[in-house]
């Protein structure tokens, strides 16, 4: 589910009609949808598969434009996937000016001094969806759309693109199931792989899987570590 398309823009250009660059697509979107929130997320890896990050509020308008525009005509949504970006602790050095008491020329004085200080802050995490668009009519693509939630706990709503591309329906359900993103406007948002009473979202980074390693005759690697931890906990009880 996490694997994206390996087709590069260069290959797809060779096959089909010339696709606009990602900046040109961005400009076209901005011209067509006033007040749109869209920015380019560059990809420096060999695939150079840049993507467009769309503000959730304008997602439906952007998607409708990309599908209906005569030149772009993205009529095929090939893949929808989710990404979990957990909270990240960032430490940075800041110069701080503060008052300090010091003895200068034999007299105690208050002096300003500048000190380096390491500050740690937590960048809040978020959940992201990634949509891969192709055009069957124009034989070009992919164009990658991204959307981010506000955080990964209580504000996890994103607009559903199922009304624009029907093929998103089951994949958005899968993302809802495994990542916990709630798609507004989805016609039938239920769990699809896990059962209805299930509470967790297994593809999230902080998912804790059930401890059922009570019997591991040939345990190795990770499983061995878990089985040993399990046995230690049982012995302690």
């Amino acid at each position, binding site marked *: 589910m996490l694997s994206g398309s390996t087709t590069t823009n260069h290959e797809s250009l060779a096959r089909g009609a010339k696709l606009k660059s990602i900046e040109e697509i961005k400009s076209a979107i901005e011209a067509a949808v006033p007040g749109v929130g869209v920015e380019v997320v560059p990809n420096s890896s060999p695939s150079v598969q840049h993507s467009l990050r769309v503000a959730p509020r304008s997602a439906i308008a952007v998607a409708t434009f990309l599908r209906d525009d005569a030149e772009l005509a993205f009529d095929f949504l090939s893949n929808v996937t989710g990404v979990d970006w957990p909270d990240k602790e960032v430490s940075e050095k800041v110069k701080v000016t503060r008052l300090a008491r010091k003895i200068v020329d034999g007299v105690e004085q208050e002096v300003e001094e500048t000190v380096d200080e390491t500050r740690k802050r937590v960048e809040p995490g978020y959940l992201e969806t990634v949509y891969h668009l192709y055009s069957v009519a124009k034989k070009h693509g992919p164009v990658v759309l991204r959307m981010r939630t506000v955080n990964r706990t209580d504000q996890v709503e994103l607009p559903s693109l199922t009304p624009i591309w029907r093929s998103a329906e089951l994949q958005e359900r899968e993302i809802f199931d495994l990542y916990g993103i709630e798609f507004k406007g989805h016609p039938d948002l239920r769990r699809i*792989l*896990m*059962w209805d*009473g*299930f*509470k*967790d979202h*297994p593809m999230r980074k902080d*998912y804790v*899987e*059930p401890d*059922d390693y*009570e*019997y591991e005759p040939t345990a190795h690697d*990770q*499983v061995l570590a878990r089985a040993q931890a399990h*046995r230690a906990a*049982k*012995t302690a009880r």
Partner: protein
Amino acid sequence: MDQNLKIELGKQGVFVTTIQELYNWGRRSSVWPMQFGLACCAIEMIATTMARYDMARFGAEVFRPSPRQADLMIVSGTVTKKMAPQVVRLYNQMAEPRYVIAMGACAISGGPFKQGYNVLKGIDRYIPVDVHIPGCPPRPEALLQAFITLQKKIDGQHLTGEDRPRFLDAGAQGEFPVPEQGEHDLEPTSNQGVWPVQIQGLGTRD
């Protein structure tokens, strides 16, 4: 009875047998499997029933779509935790005598998905399994081998005594509890009646 004498009598046109032999012969010669498959192992199971491997040679060609008419459950493939309650329920719906072949790495242990959160680590946690087949997937020959093993097992069953099979024991457990799908995992995670796991120095689980 002496085996040689039996053969000698047979040459003379006198056939000698016991009720037990006759009874077991009848059961083992027409084991009707249930028609259900869970994953890729089911493809091998289908191949086993077709002309090339021809499971009909052993009297098991009639795959029944209803558990009420089936004698043998071939658990062919990955048992996900979402599917496990239905498998146990189907097993409960089968009439005695009933047998289970766990086919392939997933059905016997969870296989390549053992470290995952969503696959049952072996169907023998909930229902008694007669024959386990390793392999991913096992070849049709392996399924035939398992089936012959099951036939041998049926042949060796005593109709009376302490070790008589479950269906001849009025006091034996007939229904196996169907696990509930809980908030994080199946509850309970195994049936202690059929999965009395001994961990060294710890005794049975919980």
